[in-house]
């Protein structure tokens, strides 16, 4: 453990619930979710098997944000969400522009999302076979705000340029664990003394035909119809796959010294970060949750915490048959001593705002921080019949008021990558 303490002083989230973290928190405590009917553009006849998602509802955009340059810049949709979320996090922190000059920006954004109009440019005008050669002469027609025109670090650079940050600009690429890794790396950089302030998080949207079709064909996305909008049900016997969301989330991390010097009030303290690899399969978790357990244990070790001190696990909880059992087994193995897992609150945020893929870890980290701040745990909604292999306290149905001194926030990704962040209630003095 290091003497340098790191705290969260700003948060910004764009999700299906809206464009502010306050709305997200309020709706989550009210046991709401934002999963709605969804169909890919051009396939509005109900034939596409994936029918539900937690899309960002632009009608909820508050007036104060309508002039944000993200909506007019040449950016992919996910990057617009990310830039708005990052701006909000900075505003929320109260940092002045001159205090951001040396800040680091760490950003996770998922795989590029192709625009149909761009792909149609591969078609030959005379009916010949399609191919790249037809696109090259028409390169000028490629959409400026489509993935083909966007560098992979576009969002990170836009945030840094837009906020005047001249510190390290780092683009993270860790699939569904991306935002968690961004926050973890930012935490490590501040702890090492490389920077005093970091803006970390991610943005993503997979709500398009090709990516959702791929997730469906891989067996990851749910096509279940019988539960209607209530089909995202982590740890439930009848869970059937992930429900995609979209959006962005960023937090402002600061050294406690820096935060206190400018009079900021921390939401929570980041205490540790752990990562691991399953080395099992590209598209499936290790069945016993070995990799997930290694990441959680690494986060505990990094934070200098004992397993018995943890009150809450913000679970990855994807609502997929494989993940939820593996994660449960992982939690039971890490918290086996004195069966501490029986005392844990486990909450799955994806049941409320879907799976934000590369961005998922950011709003989930925020919700964990707010749980520490308020001693309130958001519920796992739509959980009615526990899977027989999922036998923990998942806070089903409604928010729980309970003491949360320390918590872990888990994020796992395709490719077998696992991360876990350790957070704690902010106290003026460490115990």
């Amino acid at each position, binding site marked *: 453990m290091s003497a340098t303490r790191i705290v969260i002083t700003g948060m910004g989230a764009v999700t299906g619930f809206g464009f502010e973290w306050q709305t997200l928190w309020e709706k989550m405590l009210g046991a709401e979710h934002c999963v709605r009917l969804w169909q890919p553009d051009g396939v509005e006849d109900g034939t596409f098997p994936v029918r539900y998602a937690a899309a960002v509802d632009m009608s909820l955009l508050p007036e104060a944000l309508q002039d944000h340059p993200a909506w007019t810049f040449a950016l992919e949709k996910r990057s617009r969400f990310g830039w708005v979320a990052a701006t909000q996090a900075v505003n929320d922190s109260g940092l002045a522009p001159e205090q951001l000059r040396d800040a680091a920006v760490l950003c996770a954004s998922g*795989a590029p999302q192709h625009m149909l109009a761009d792909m149609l440019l591969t078609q030959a005008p005379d009916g010949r076979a*399609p191919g*790249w*050669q037809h696109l090259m002469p028409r390169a000028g027609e490629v959409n400026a705000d489509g993935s083909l025109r966007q560098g992979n670090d576009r969002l*990170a650079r836009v945030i840094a340029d837009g906020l005047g940050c001249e510190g390290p600009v780092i683009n*993270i690429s*860790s699939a569904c664990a991306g935002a968690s890794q961004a926050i973890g790396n930012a935490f490590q950089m501040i702890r090492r003394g490389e920077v005093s302030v970091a803006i970390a998080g991610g943005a993503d949207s997979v709500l398009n035909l090709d990516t959702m079709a791929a997730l469906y064909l891989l067996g990851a996305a749910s096509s279940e119809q019988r539960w209607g909008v209530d089909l995202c049900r982590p740890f439930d016997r009848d869970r059937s796959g992930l429900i995609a969301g979209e959006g962005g989330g960023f937090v402002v991390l600061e050294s406690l010294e820096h935060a206190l010097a400018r009079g900021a009030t921390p939401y929570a303290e980041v205490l540790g970060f752990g990562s*691991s690899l399953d080395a099992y399969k*590209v598209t499936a978790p290790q069945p016993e949750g070995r990799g997930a357990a290694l990441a959680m244990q690494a986060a505990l070790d990094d934070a200098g915490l004992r397993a018995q001190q943890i009150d809450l696990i913000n679970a990855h909880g994807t609502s997929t048959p494989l993940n939820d059992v593996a994660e449960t087994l992982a939690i039971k193995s890490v918290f086996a001593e004195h069966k501490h897992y029986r005392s844990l609150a486990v909450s799955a945020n994806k049941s409320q705002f879907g799976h934000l893929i590369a961005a998922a870890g950011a709003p989930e980290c925020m919700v964990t921080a707010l749980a520490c701040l308020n001693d309130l745990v958001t519920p796992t909604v739509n959980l009615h019949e526990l899977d027989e292999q999922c036998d923990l306290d998942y806070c089903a149905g409604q928010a729980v008021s309970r003491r949360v001194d320390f918590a872990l926030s888990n994020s796992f990704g395709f490719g077998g990558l696992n991360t876990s962040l350790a957070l704690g209630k902010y106290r003026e003095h460490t115990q």
Partner: protein
Amino acid sequence: MTGATVRIAIAGSGCVLPSGWGVQRFWSAASEARSGIAVLQSKVFHSERVAAFGHVSDEDHQTSRQDVAQNLQRYCPPAVIWGVSAVRQALAEAGLEPGNDSLRYGLYCCQGGYTHPSLAAYGELLHECRDESGADMRRLAQRVLQERALDPFLVLKSLSNGLLGIVSLALKLECECNAYMQGVAGNLAALREACAALQSGRVDAAIVVGAGSELDPLALAALAEAGVISTNGSQTLRAFDRQGTGGIAGEGAAALILRRVDDLPDGPQTCLSALFAHPRLGSLNLPDKQVDLLVSSASGDPQKDADLARTLARAGAAHITSSVPVTGILSGAPSLVDLILARNALLAQRVPPIIGLQQPVDPHLPFVLGEGRDAVLRDCLIINRDDNGFSACYQLDYQSTD
């Protein structure tokens, strides 16, 4: 790393580059002034304006495939396969066998950019599902879903952390990890995290690997639009030359194994002693003392290289060279390749030349022209500048047994 007292050494290296498979081929090409840049060849597109590229040869690709199990190859774009091969080379040189030794490993990856492998398949589908008013999306969706015309693994191949996942699977690594995507900045972040993990004692051996390819018409078009590569049909990349005609992209992978010096047996070591970075080249911190060798990236654009040369002058190096004319401009492993070049120069006490350099942008700087030369080299500075302006500086020190 500033202020850190635990010394970090490069214990092994590996690469698959336009110069060939393996570090020895790369070092030979650099020493003998043989460029790996050739006429641009692609099965899916043709360009007259972008005429040259640093290709990894088919033969070297096939050699690399031997390092990746058949069942994993379906997830792998070529660069990921090269990355796995580079890691295996580096581990072999370092004498390490993950799973068969008791070391704690860390894996830190950097991919050059997103791949778009699904576009070609998608283009064919769109062609078949087109009607008079454009694409029939319903028909397209049916084709995709019912006939599995869109291979989901094509999407997985474009996963930005594919390199991390496949290396971990190939080597059965369950260790601490990080994945980045951003050229020089990504390389720097991966190296920084690897060094920090070693210095903190969390890991005993850090695998740092980068891989990427820009052999994609849209990636090349974007690089051309950004002024990174030449569009005048040029076949050579003339670094730091007044007659330079612009950059040429390349592809490949490189890997390093980092260890704590104190954990290594006695013998000559090349130690990574400093890392610096800044979004602006002019503000990049450089060590106070002069160095014997400077390895620098270059753009091939005379004006940009002259700007870069002003920063190089601050380093006061005895010799300046560059790997860019050997490989082309790399997206996935630019700094790792330069570290490999610097390490070999320090071990061989020999400076490779800048291929093709005839009229330096600054005649007062000690650019190495013509042939390589023997020299006493105790330390080396590596200065890298990305096409997005991000700059990094690394220092490598040679510690002999004397």
